[in-house]
């Protein structure tokens, strides 16, 4: 198995509770960086990261452009910016056009992670009412990375996981608790 370098998680606004549950369930010595891209209201800039940070086992921040990507840290895509990764392990933000009417868009973040980290990444698609993220997860699959889709039967809104399942056969289909167990038991 390739050495995993990064985890990327995506969901729509309704995935807040699932993301919170996953981030609170991850062991506190989890050594990898975790990128989180969620659809969110662009005018509500504060409170989102802080709320996740209170629940999470790892520190959660909204990065600035060119911030270094560090292990054991959660990076939440800021409101109204796309979030990318660069080859020198830094965050890159952009105000380019929305994808699937979204900025931040999951497809953009996931595709960027796939291009930079290849098979050394894990992509996770959670509940959501939009097909955004499916193409990005496919990109991770095409690069040989690990792909996880939340079991649609456990999702508040199954559109997003179902869109991903229509495009690829993921490595795993898991419940939120299954995702936590997978992350905590990964060979790193």
């Amino acid at each position, binding site marked *: 198995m390739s050495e995993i370098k990064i985890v990327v998680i995506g969901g729509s606004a309704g995935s807040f509770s699932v993301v919170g549950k996953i981030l609170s369930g991850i062991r506190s010595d989890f050594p990898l960086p975790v990128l989180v891209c969620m659809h969110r209201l662009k005018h509500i800039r504060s409170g989102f990261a802080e709320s996740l940070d209170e629940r999470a086992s790892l520190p959660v921040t909204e*990065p600035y452009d060119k911030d270094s990507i560090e292990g054991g840290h959660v990076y939440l895509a*800021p409101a*109204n*910016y796309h979030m990318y990764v660069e080859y020198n392990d830094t965050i890159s933000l*952009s*105000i380019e*056009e929305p994808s699937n009417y979204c900025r931040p868009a999951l497809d953009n973040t996931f595709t960027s992670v796939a291009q930079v980290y290849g098979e050394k990444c894990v992509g996770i698609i959670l509940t959501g009412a939009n097909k955004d993220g499916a193409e990005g997860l496919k990109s991770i699959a095409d690069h040989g990375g690990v792909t996880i889709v939340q079991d649609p039967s456990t999702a508040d809104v199954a559109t997003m996981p179902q869109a991903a399942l229509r495009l690829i056969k993921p490595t795993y289909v898991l419940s939120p608790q299954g995702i936590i167990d997978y992350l905590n038991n990964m060979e790193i």
Partner: protein
Amino acid sequence: MFLSISELRDLTVLMSGRLKIDYTGYNLSFFGRRVANVFKKMGLRRVQDLQTILNSLVKDDEVTYHMAVPGTEVFRSPSFWRQIIRILTENDIKTVWVPSLTSNHELYSLAIVRELAGRRNETKIEVNVVSDRTTREVNELLIPETEKDLTKTNYERLQTSTPLEDFIRTENENGMYLKRELMENIEFRNGWYMNTDTVSYDMVLFRNTLIEYKKSLHEKAAQKMMDSLKGRGSVLCLGGRERPLVGDGWFDETLAYDGIYIRK
């Protein structure tokens, strides 16, 4: 379309030479996405198609136009614009520079908040634009129909007592046309801002451009902006999630959350 890293690098050199913009200093991934946008918008299929255009300098303005990220919305980040109204109202800001205008959004926002501050005649705005097409579009004074609702919503968030309608000349199926007088005391210049002489301004509005660059060009551009500030109390405006990688200790960062850096 998928270009290899070496093809992209070659293009950065060719385009820098032809278009007089240092694309070699752009984040390569960002550059690749913008080149893809050029291919899509101009119906190109092969790298050679783009090379032909660049070598002949025919349609090069279209290339420059589609390489740029259009601003996203009028009054993007309303809390930022609320601060700018206050700064313009409370300070004697005589000159504002917009070094890298790529669409109507930032300039219309600035022109309207200048009006709200009652500073049309007192505050001169100078704008650098790299594409003639951008200049033509900005001078149409049109907020397209597709952006009308968002503009109105953002404007409401400015929490001003002046209705947006005060700045609208007419509305039709194309959208809202702003009043022509908003463009008074605004000067347009062609060319990439890094190629211009350094002049001092009271305010520089340079939001969300540094994020397109590698660290090296970011530092050069940020230094240029700092050199373009008049002195104590002058204002540098960046995007909410970018910060200057140079000038440590230069700025009062009380308003940095909104991307506003005030020179100490």
